[in-house]
């Protein structure tokens, strides 16, 4: 299990989009992750970014609210 530091979040409807500075090679849509309280969340989707400067930032749309500074995948 790896820990990913959340660099930013934004609410999208009932869900949360989290940004991590990691290419996230080991997850895909439908995978799960744990927040720092051990609460599991479903990964609804992993976004594609028009970020030409840093292609290793990944935006992950997670089901529900996440009040966490890091997640475990």
């Amino acid at each position: 299990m790896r820990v990913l530091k959340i660099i930013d979040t934004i609410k999208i409807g009932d869900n949360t989009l989290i940004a991590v500075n990691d290419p996230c090679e080991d997850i895909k849509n439908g995978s799960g992750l744990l927040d720092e309280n051990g609460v599991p969340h479903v990964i609804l989707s992993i976004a594609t970014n028009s970020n030409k400067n840093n292609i290793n930032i990944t935006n992950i749309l997670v089901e529900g609210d996440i009040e966490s500074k890091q997640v475990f995948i």
Partner: protein
Amino acid sequence: MHIEADAPQEAIAKLYNGYNIDIYLSDELNASHIVELVGNTRKSTNYYKVVIKQLNRKSKPINYIEPMPKKQLQRIIRDFKAKGGVILINDDVDEFLRKQGAEGSTLNENTILLVKNPSRSAVHEELIHAEQYRKGKNNGSRRSRLLCEIEAQKILIRKKDELGITDKENEQTKLALKAYEEEYKQLNKRRR
């Protein structure tokens, strides 16, 4: 009297009209400045003093990319909404994306985030990504995301003229394509 001109020479030509003119440059001039004829400063017959100055027009930064015209963007937002999707552009989204240095992000086939005043290439890229999700090309894995990015950049380059993408944007797209292709190569090496 104000004369709009695309270059000092053009303004001078417009003003000159057979008179002798002293030209004073009050600031370094770029294209699209405004020329001002200062008062009635005729020194003698057929002789005018002219000051050319840049009026509150800051030069654009080197990395400035022209945004998509608002009407075109509104039409795209309307069309995307008609297909059941949503393009989110607001203060929170703008801050979220700009912190990452991104202009847009596509979450799935129906949800696109864009900065305020996005470039043409950013808007079209996100529309391509939404379509890729719709066609099932993106399952969220790093591999499929990279393949989608590579495909999107290639489409943008190929349709540059059709989409009205500027040369500057196109150069950035080419660089991004290179970066994604290299990353894809590295990913395959790591998986061997």
